[in-house]
């Protein structure tokens, strides 16, 4: 009897506190993420400039393929994050893994080529240049990262730790996509190792920090 009363009291309280809400729409989440990624890319280009070969009207196939793979990973991971924000039994959260598996070709190929060459992977100059891409690509991830974390906070992810990880992957992949518009290096060793490191680092950051923000 008291239980029933306390449930009734709770319902009355919740009803009294009802405010209209705007439902989380998939399309709105995608549009907001793409806008954040576009803004980040624009800032990279404004601060550091476009790749010199693009300005001269030339393209490099290695660079195009790698940048496209990061963009594909970014989009797939974003879709997964948006799906995770709206719980539903029967939802599939695994789509991003295939994109990640394909993008993983880059670091694997980079390591194989680097070891095969047997030199200069750890040379001071390549480390400095790599560290720069890591730091600036990471910075270019932050806006998308914050956007996705805020979106997940409004939503109801039932696996907060995975959602944090995938949000980090999406943000890192968009960030290195943005910085790839500037980075003139076409070497698979540089791209495979240092550019992928941005995705890994942001995934780690997402896994470590986002769950506590979005747990409910």
């Amino acid at each position, binding site marked *: 009897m008291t239980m029933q009363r306390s449930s009734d009291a709770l319902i009355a309280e919740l009803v009294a506190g009802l405010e209209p809400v705007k439902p989380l*729409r998939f399309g709105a989440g995608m549009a907001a993420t793409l806008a954040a990624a576009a803004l980040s890319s624009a800032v990279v280009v404004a601060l550091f400039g476009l790749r010199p070969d693009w300005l001269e009207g030339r393209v490099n196939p290695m660079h195009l393929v790698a940048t496209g793979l990061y963009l594909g990973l970014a989009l797939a991971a974003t879709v997964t994050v948006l799906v995770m924000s709206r719980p539903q039994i029967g*939802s599939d959260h695994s789509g991003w893994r295939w994109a990640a598996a394909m993008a993983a070709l880059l670091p694997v190929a980079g390591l194989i080529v680097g070891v095969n060459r047997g030199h200069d992977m750890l040379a001071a100059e390549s480390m400095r240049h790599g560290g720069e891409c890591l730091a600036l690509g990471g910075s270019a991830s932050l806006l998308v990262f914050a956007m996705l974390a805020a979106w997940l906070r409004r939503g109801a992810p039932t696996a907060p730790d995975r959602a944090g990880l995938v949000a980090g992957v999406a943000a890192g992949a968009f960030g290195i996509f943005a910085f790839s518009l500037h980075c003139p290096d076409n070497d698979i060793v540089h791209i495979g190792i240092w550019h992928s490191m941005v995705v890994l680092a942001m995934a780690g950051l997402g896994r470590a920090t986002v769950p506590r923000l979005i747990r409910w």
Partner: protein
Amino acid sequence: MRADEATLARLMALSQTGDRQAYAALLEACQRWLRGYYSRRIAPASLDDLVQETLIALHNKRASWDSSRPFLPWLAAIARYRWVDHLRRLYRADEHELHEELIGTDDEPAIAARISLDRLLGLLPPGQERAIALVKIEGLSIAEASQATGQSEALVKVNIHRGLKKLAHMIEKE
């Protein structure tokens, strides 16, 4: 009122626009639906707490449903999340018996089965499922569960720990 998918979805859509009358009817219907959903899957003494926690979660997360999607699979995902969280927090249930009365749900049996807690538990290996059912749901002690299953006490604990971890990652699985 019948707690069927179409009615609940309509009430929820109205609630999102701020319609309090619809919201009161929705919460009342959800409360009854949740009691059926959780019955036999939680110690009776915890049932009211869990139903209320889930209603609060529904309230806080009501923007995460949109009217283009079915309502009950959304509500059940929220209910499973709260249930697993509850089991993880629970050390020892005070009460041992289970509700004898079975509260029926009005939903189509096929949907109800796909989103049920049994379906979720059934995704676990049998040893883990049994350890969780005995200790976390029926409220047996580790020693009693060890006797009932033939698992060592250490294994019962390991199975509970691993099983709950796994459940937390499978909330939205069918």
